[in-house]
C-alpha cells in the first residue's frame, strides 16, 4: 500500500533526513578523533570511517540515488 504525502509532509521529511544525516556525520567525526588517539592514528580504521561519512554525504546530500530521475532533487 502506498502512502501519498502532502508537499508539507514531504518537506518536513526531507528536513528531518538532513538533520539525522548531520547528526550521524558529527558523531562519526567525534569517533574519528577518539580512534586517532586510541589507536595512534590507525589509517585503516580512519579511512573506513571517512568512507562511511563520504557515503552518507553522497547518498543523502548529493542525491546519487536520484541522479537519473526526471524530478528535481
Amino acid at each position, binding site marked *: 500500500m502506498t502512502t501519498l504525502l502532502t508537499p508539507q509532509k514531504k518537506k518536513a521529511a526531507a528536513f528531518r533526513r*538532513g538533520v539525522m544525516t548531520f547528526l550521524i556525520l558529527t558523531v562519526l*567525526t567525534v569517533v574519528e*578523533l577518539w580512534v586517532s588517539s586510541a589507536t595512534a592514528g590507525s*589509517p585503516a580504521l580512519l579511512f573506513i570511517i571517512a568512507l562511511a561519512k563520504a557515503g552518507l*554525504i553522497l547518498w543523502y546530500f*548529493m542525491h546519487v540515488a536520484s*541522479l537519473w530521475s526526471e524530478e*528535481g*532533487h
Partner: protein
Amino acid sequence: MATVATHAAHSRLKFNRLGLWLFLVTEVFMFGGFLVMRFHLWGNTRPDLDQTLGFIVTLILLSSSFFMNRAEMAIAHDDRKNFLVGLLITGVLGVLFLVGVVGFEWRGHVRPTDGVYGAVLYGMTGMHALHVLSGIIFIFVILLNGLKGRYSSADHWGVEFCAIYWHFVDVVWVFFYPALYLIGTVAHV
C-alpha cells in the same frame, strides 16, 4: 506540445547532471593525487597540527553542508525564505572555514618551506581552500539570483549545481581531515 517541452527540459536536466558529475570525476583524480602524495611523502606520520582547530573547521564545513541541503530542499518545495536563509548561513560558514584554515592553521608553526610536511600541508589545504573560495562565490551568486526570485520548485538547476559542488568540497575535506590531522604518529617538524 507541453509534453514535448517537458520532455526536453528533463533531457536537459539529465545532461546537465551528467556534465556536472563528469567534472567532479576529474576533481576526484586531482584530489586523489594529493592524497597519494600525502601517504607517499608522510607515510605513517603527520605534523603536530592544532587538533581543536581541525575538529572545529571540520564541524563548520559539515554544518554548512547541512544548511546547503536545507536550502536546496526548501527551494524544491517553493519555500523561498528557508532557501535564502539556508544559503546565507552556508556562505557564512564557508567563510568561517576559510578563516580557520587560512587565518589560523596557516599561521601555525608549520611553514610552507618545512620540507615535505610544509609542502603537502599547504598544497592540500591550499587547493581545497581555493575550491571553498570558488564555492562561496558561487553561493553568493545563487543568493543574489534567489533574491531576484529566479528559482522555483520547477526550475532550480543552478541551486542543485551549487549544492552538489559544495557537498563535493565537503566530501574532499572528509578525506583530507583524517589524512592531515589524525592518521599516523606525530613527527616533530
